[in-house]
């Protein structure tokens, strides 16, 4: 039992891989390196799968890619609504990134989303985008006025929303990924064969993708609320 606790603790700590010798040394954490790997994989996939596209007589690969991209874009578009069509590419990118980041643990990497800093950064990006979308749709005056809606007495709660929303987005993603990870480690202790594989389908694959969906869904819900 001691060994498990120590192993889990070790996995929780985010190690610094190397230090960039500039500006007094910038620490590059493990999650950043794994994020680079995810970026490289996604960019290379996007690059090689989209070579040689034609308008007529399309190949099977092109047809498959077109279906995939259309499906993903329409999925986020139904979430954010037609007025928020400008935010669809961002939301889809975040969906892809979090989805891959959550399930990359299967391939032996440490999930970046298991690092609180990564989820916090994603949540901050979301809330800044939501406020920017509000300002863009209504102008500064309209955006400020949205704090006193529906009545003036709820203003403190509206301001509190600016803090609680990113906090809950960040904690939800972090807690889910971490929880799934701890449970998987405990299951591995009980029985190291067959059983983890069965549970891994739920905890790693299903829960990981579901949380990516939930994160994007909530972000688009906030955007929808901000621009209407």
């Amino acid at each position, binding site marked *: 039992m001691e060994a498990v606790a120590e192993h889990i*603790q070790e996995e*929780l700590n985010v190690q610094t891989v190397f230090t960039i010798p500039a500006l007094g040394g910038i620490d590059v954490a493990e999650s950043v390196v794994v994020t680079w790997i995810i970026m490289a994989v996604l960019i290379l996939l996007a690059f090689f799968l989209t070579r040689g596209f034609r308008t007529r007589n399309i190949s099977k690969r092109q047809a498959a890619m077109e279906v995939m991209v259309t499906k993903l874009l329409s999925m986020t578009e139904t979430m954010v609504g037609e007025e928020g069509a400008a935010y669809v590419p961002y939301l889809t990118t975040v969906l892809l990134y979090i989805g891959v980041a959550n399930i990359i643990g299967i391939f032996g990497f440490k999930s970046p989303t298991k690092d609180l800093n990564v989820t916090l950064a994603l949540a901050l990006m979301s809330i800044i985008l939501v406020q920017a979308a509000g300002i863009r749709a209504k102008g500064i005056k309209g955006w400020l006025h949205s704090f006193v809606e529906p009545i003036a007495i709820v203003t403190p709660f509206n301001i509190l929303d600016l803090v609680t929303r990113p906090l*809950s987005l960040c*904690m*939800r993603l*972090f*807690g*889910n990924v*971490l*929880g799934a990870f701890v449970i998987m480690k405990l299951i591995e202790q009980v029985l190291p064969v067959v059983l983890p594989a069965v549970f891994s389908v739920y905890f790693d694959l299903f829960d990981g993708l*579901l949380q990516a*969906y*939930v994160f994007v*869904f*909530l972000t688009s*819900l906030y955007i929808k609320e901000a621009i209407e």
Partner: protein
Amino acid sequence: MNSLIAVGAGIAVLGALGAGIGIGIATGKAVEAVARQPEADGKIMKNLILGCALAEATAIYGFVIAIMIIMFFR
């Protein structure tokens, strides 16, 4: 001291109780709704996932706090 930390972490995870009840009620109602109106399946599913994600948050907070208790008090 160590055992007290463990008890504290255990109490923090009791928050999962509320999430369990909440998700249970939500799923029950969603099943009822689908039985009544099978054609609204997609919309109900979407709302159910949203509701579950929000209800689940309390359990996740409990879990995160439990982990923090263990990490910071040892």
